[in-house]
């Protein structure tokens, strides 16, 4: 459907334009009539002067037509005026022979008008009949070229046309004002809706909108409430499921711990218990990852819950994650290090989400190494953002997999059993929710993966980082 603006413009401006066009055609015709009438009056006046002079003189004088007869026409259009006096028989008595005789002479004082040509130029002619005292009568013809007529008609038409144009301009200006002032609340409303984060379940404020939009807002808010209720129920379900699973896993872990401590149990059965414990840990990891995904989703739907904005020191988080993963790196024979560290980087993000990003990326880098190698972590400031770069010397990710590794449950190498393919999708979703971005590329050395995460810094650099007792 076309926009409101274009519809309004079409319905107001187009009829105006059509009306204007019709009116101009009508005006053109009437100006032609007025101009013709004016010309006729002049021609008639002039012919009468000549005719009355002849009647008074009882014949055509040697001096010809009186000059007064032509003074009437004095104008700047350089029209040419012709006259001819003819007897009742049509014989030319005085004047210009080039002027054609009338088709039918006027009766008595009646005059006739007609169009003709004199030496190729169009003229309007009046033929005026005059009774003489001797009972005979003559016909006086006066003709004028059409230049003045056309100029007069044009002037009249232009005056009207100008008025129309002014009117149209006024209407157009009025429309612009209408768009600006009347549609502004609507535009502001649609901008407000567009500005909301995708997936947001915030209520729309009904205060600052025109009454006509209230039903729309009520409908949207009602929909949001219903959706929120559904989502909340879903979240409660997820939370209570997670709670029960964790409790069951906790019991299982305790039982396994107890079994492992029993001196009477032979080593091969202890190995079995250890394997079971490992499986339990993996299950726990998946529960935790799913909960994190749910909490990111929740954060997106209710951004207001984050107030006041948190502030976290990136370097501290990265350092503690490296320390936590050091034993894993040792086990995989991977040399782990922090090669660039900018101490002053404070991010407007909850520290547990930053920890999650860092942990998943470094954990991934270590576990995907296909032999001894190294993982380098760098924390730098690049322009107005923080750059977290993790470079490994592993096999890397083939370019055709790079877009898909961020999908949930996608695994570039399905043969690897120890992952469920959630780690990178969590990283990606956290990045999105924090208005950051993540890029994968081949490291500068031509082998291995380089992951660049860019995150916005906290606006106020004096903000105190939130610290978590560990």
């Amino acid at each position: 459907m076309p926009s409101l603006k274009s519809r309004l413009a079409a319905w107001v401006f187009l009829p105006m334009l059509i009306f204007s066009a019709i009116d101009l055609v009508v005006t053109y015709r009437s100006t032609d009539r007025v101009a013709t009438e004016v010309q006729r009056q002049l021609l008639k006046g002039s012919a009468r002067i000549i005719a009355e002079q002849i009647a008074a003189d009882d014949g055509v004088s040697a001096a010809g037509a009186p000059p007064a007869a032509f003074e009437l026409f004095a104008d700047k259009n350089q029209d040419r005026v012709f006259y001819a006096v003819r007897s009742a028989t049509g014989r030319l008595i005085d004047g210009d022979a080039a002027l054609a005789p009338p088709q039918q002479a006027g009766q008595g004082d009646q005059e006739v008008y007609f169009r003709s040509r004199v030496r190729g130029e169009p003229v309007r002619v009046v033929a005026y009949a005059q009774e003489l005292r001797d009972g005979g009568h003559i016909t006086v013809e006066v003709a004028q070229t059409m230049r003045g007529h056309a100029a007069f008609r044009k002037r009249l038409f232009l005056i009207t046309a100008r008025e129309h144009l002014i009117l149209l301009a006024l209407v157009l200006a009025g429309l612009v004002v209408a768009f600006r002032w009347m549609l502004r609340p609507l535009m502001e409303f649609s901008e407000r809706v567009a500005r909301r984060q995708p997936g947001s379940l915030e209520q729309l404020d009904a205060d600052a909108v025109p009454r006509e939009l209230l039903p729309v807002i009520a409908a949207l808010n009602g929909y949001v409430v219903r959706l929120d209720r559904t989502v909340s129920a879903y979240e409660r379900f997820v939370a209570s499921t997670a709670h029960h699973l964790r409790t069951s896993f906790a019991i299982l872990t305790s039982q396994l711990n107890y079994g492992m401590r029993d001196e009477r149990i032979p080593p091969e059965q202890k190995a079995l218990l250890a394997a079971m414990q490992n499986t339990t840990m993996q299950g726990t990891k998946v529960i935790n990852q799913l909960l994190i995904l749910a909490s990111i989703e929740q954060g997106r739907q209710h951004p207001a819950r984050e107030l006041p904005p948190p502030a976290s020191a990136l370097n501290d988080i990265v350092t503690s994650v490296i320390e936590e993963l050091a034993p894993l790196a040792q086990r995989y024979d991977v040399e782990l290090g922090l090669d660039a560290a900018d101490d002053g980087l404070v991010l407007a993000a909850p520290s547990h989400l930053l920890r999650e990003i860092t942990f998943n990326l470094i954990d991934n880098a270590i576990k995907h190494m296909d032999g001894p190698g190294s993982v380098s972590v760098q924390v730098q400031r690049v322009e107005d953002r923080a750059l977290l770069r993790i470079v490994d010397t592993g096999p890397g990710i083939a370019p055709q997999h790079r877009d898909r590794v961020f999908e949930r449950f996608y695994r570039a190498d399905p043969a690897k059993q120890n992952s469920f393919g959630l780690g990178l999708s969590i990283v990606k979703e956290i990045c999105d929710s924090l208005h950051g971005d993540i890029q994968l590329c081949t490291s500068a050395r031509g082998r291995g993966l380089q992951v660049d995460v860019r995150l916005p810094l906290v606006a106020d650099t004096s903000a105190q980082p939130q610290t978590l007792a560990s």
Partner: protein
Amino acid sequence: MILRMKLLLTEDNRDLSAWLTRLLNQSGYAVEQAFSGEEADLLLRTQTYDAILLDLTLPLLSGQTLLRRLRNQDNGVPVLIISAQDSLQDIVEHLNLGADDYLAKPFDIQELEARLRSLLRRSSGKASPMVSCGNLHYDSNSKIFRIRDQILQVTPREHAVLEALLRKVGKTVSKQDLADSLVILNDMVTPKALEVYIVRLRKKLENSGVAIITLRGLGYMLSAVEA
């Protein structure tokens, strides 16, 4: 454990409570069980404990309320929250409410006991003479390192380095801090010399389940690893 530490385990899941009690008894703790907040509250009016293990989702009286009540009564008993709820927002809140530490379910008994030990050590106000990392134990009274039950022979300088690492187990110690730990012995140590001690210590710790890990750009870290 010379002195039997007395713990209050507040956990509404009876299975989990029973198994944790068995495990903690094995490790020498005396454990009393409470299955609701109300029950825990009653016990706390008449008994004193060295530490409380507190679940948050308790029937009748929630863990949060119990904790607040405890702290309002100026009862400074160390509280370790064990919870299946896991939002970091919650954790921060509870630590602000006066919990001393937090452990998410499920947890390994070794992790729980390590946290308990450090909690009890902190609350007793004096450094414990025993420091451990995996199979490596150090008694600061006798100044002896042991791996499992075997005494680990070290030179005075190795001793200083290993003790500094063990005191901050799980955290990196910068080369500068390690060098500083040797100043007590009136030694000025070059980074090269320090590396020599590290190499020697590593050799002695081989197959012990404990390793000195180098973290490029950060320093050295002592950590339990798979033997």
